[in-house]
């Protein structure tokens, strides 16, 4: 029976090419957008190299100072604040203080190369899982001595040295020469806490250490001993912030800063206005957006199915005359719809793979490695199937209630 239904489904798809195109386009395009958005989401917030252990990592990347009379300002914290308060926290396993990435210029054979540089401590390399292709990171000694050494990414290595040796060679960035001691895999630009083209010791930026303001151009990355310690670390951080507010009553009325996971930090920055943790709200909004987005092809499918099924009323009548019950008729159209949805799903999968490859190759997102998330694909397909079922069941149910004789006449009633 299933084979017969699929035969019919296939024949109907081929017969009504325009309808088929609209249906398949709706399903596959929806799935493709869902996949690309999720892949981007995963790329920014999911456990990806070098921020693999996201359940043990917290980031401090913003500090808001309220100065009274409704005036407030915010931005990355200063080295002074992070070094004095955050680095000395007791609950974390490790704390790294590093600069935000800054644009710099370099010249190779009189050709300008725009790079991003980041100043880090040695803990940065211990906390994050960089994939070293050559050499090693700089250690405590190099940081202490403010050695002019650099870790570069593979693209910078290629631009500078081609296929020749890189380790021990010199690169010149903003007229400062650095000796290359390590080469790592490219880190996507969306990983703002770890991304750069060139990483050098933080002590080379020591002129900024003297600024005793709370805001500057630095981030902190905190690693917990275990995921269960995260709440304790946040509590300790909150206490620090209260203490900082108390210590600076003249300059600031209130200081707001949080040690957040990546997604929390995003949710706080945008829907939370820098104050509230809006992760649940963000997830709800995203789920709602995905639902509404998927509702469009569903409504489209319902419409198409109604007209498609109406024009097949004679077939429904014949099937009823020869022994199909109403439930059997519903079953047939559901099978057909599931078949169509699966076909759309397959196309959606291929489209997603193509679009993600295009984004990766285009360089729109620097060093992006967007990949297909099979878990999301499975969920997307499941949702499509559910919507496919709904969109097939309703018109089929409507038609199945027709008397066979009315269906044979063309479903005029």
């Amino acid at each position, binding site marked *: 029976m299933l084979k017969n239904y699929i*035969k019919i489904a296939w*024949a109907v798809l081929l017969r009504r090419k325009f309808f088929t195109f609209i249906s398949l386009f709706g399903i596959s395009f929806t799935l493709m957008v869902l996949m690309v958005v999720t892949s981007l989401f995963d790329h920014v917030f999911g456990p990806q190299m070098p921020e693999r252990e996201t359940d043990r990592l917290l980031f401090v990347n913003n500090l808001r100072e309220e100065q009274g009379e409704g005036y407030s300002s915010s931005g990355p914290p200063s080295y002074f604040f992070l070094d004095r308060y955050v680095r000395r926290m007791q609950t974390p396993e490790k704390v790294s203080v590093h600069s935000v990435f800054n644009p710099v210029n370099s010249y190779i054979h009189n050709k300008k190369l725009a790079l991003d540089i980041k100043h880090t401590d040695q803990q940065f390399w211990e906390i994050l899982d960089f994939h070293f292709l050559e050499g090693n990171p700089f250690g405590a000694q190099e940081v202490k001595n403010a050695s002019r050494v650099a870790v570069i990414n593979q693209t910078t290595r290629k631009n500078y040295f081609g296929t020749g040796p890189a380790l021990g060679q010199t690169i010149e960035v903003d007229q400062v020469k650095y000796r290359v001691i390590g080469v790592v895999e490219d880190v996507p630009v969306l990983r703002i806490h770890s991304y750069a083209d060139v990483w050098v010791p933080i002590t080379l930026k020591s002129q900024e250490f003297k600024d005793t303001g709370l805001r500057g151009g630095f981030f902190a990355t905190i690693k917990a001993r275990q995921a269960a310690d995260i709440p304790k670390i946040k509590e300790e951080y909150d206490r620090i912030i209260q203490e900082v507010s108390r210590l600076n009553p003249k300059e600031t009325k209130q200081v707001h800063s949080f040690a957040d996971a990546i997604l929390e930090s995003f949710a706080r920055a945008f829907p939370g206005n820098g104050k509230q943790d809006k992760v649940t709200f963000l997830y709800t909004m995203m789920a709602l957006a995905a639902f509404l987005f998927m509702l469009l092809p569903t409504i489209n499918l319902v419409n198409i199915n109604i007209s498609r099924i109406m024009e097949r009323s004679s077939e429904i*009548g014949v099937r009823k005359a*020869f*022994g199909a*019950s109403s439930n059997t008729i519903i079953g047939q159209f559901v099978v057909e719809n599931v078949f169509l949805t699966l076909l759309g799903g397959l196309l959606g999968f291929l489209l997603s793979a193509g679009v993600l490859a295009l984004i990766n190759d285009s360089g729109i997102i620097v060093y992006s490695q967007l990949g297909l998330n099979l878990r999301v694909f499975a969920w997307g397909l499941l949702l499509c199937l559910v919507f496919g079922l709904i969109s097939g069941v309703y018109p089929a149910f409507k038609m199945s209630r027709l008397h066979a004789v009315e269906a*044979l006449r063309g479903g005029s009633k």
Partner: protein
Amino acid sequence: MIQLQDIEKVYRTKTIETVALHRVNLHVERGEFVSIMGPSGCGKSTLLNIMGLLDDPSSGQVIIDGQPVKTHSDKQLARLRNEKIGFVFQSYHLIHDLSVVDNVELPLLYRNVSASERRKRALAALEKVGLSARTKHFPSQLSGGQRQRVAIARALAGQPEIILADEPTGNLDSVMGDEIMDILLRLNQEEGTTIVMVTHDENMALKTNRLVRFFDGQQVADSRLVEAQI
């Protein structure tokens, strides 16, 4: 085999009430070939649809093999149609997207019959109507007569006890019509299949062994009753 008792069929709209059948009583015996005649709109097809459980009467009851079907569920009615009745329609009602043999297999799809057995029975039915060479064709590739033969094969495939044919020769020329009539007569005479046929064609009707006439929704003549009286 099929008994219609006091069947009434009334079509109602907000403003009009149309009586399609009025107090029809008809008993079709096993092995009979009954033709139903009457002018257009006299209720012949409605009667056949009610007899075939495709439509509900407004009142009265249909009894099949001694069992009233009034309280039957949709599923039970579907099963009765599937096992006991085969339909042949004037406009064939073949499924265009299926091949000839797939069309003929249709009644068997709704039974627990294996795919190979379905195919075997469908091919046997097609052989009976002389269409063994066209099994892979699609309905659009066949002539009207051939399509009606496929429709008869489909009705036969489920080996029903009764075939209900609604003007099976109505869309065919006389040669094709005769061919179809011959097949139906052979089925009745050689295999004992009960057939009820609605027709406009007096010549066709006269070939059957019982003729029931309708006028304005009422049964006005029944040749069996006449014979009985003689």
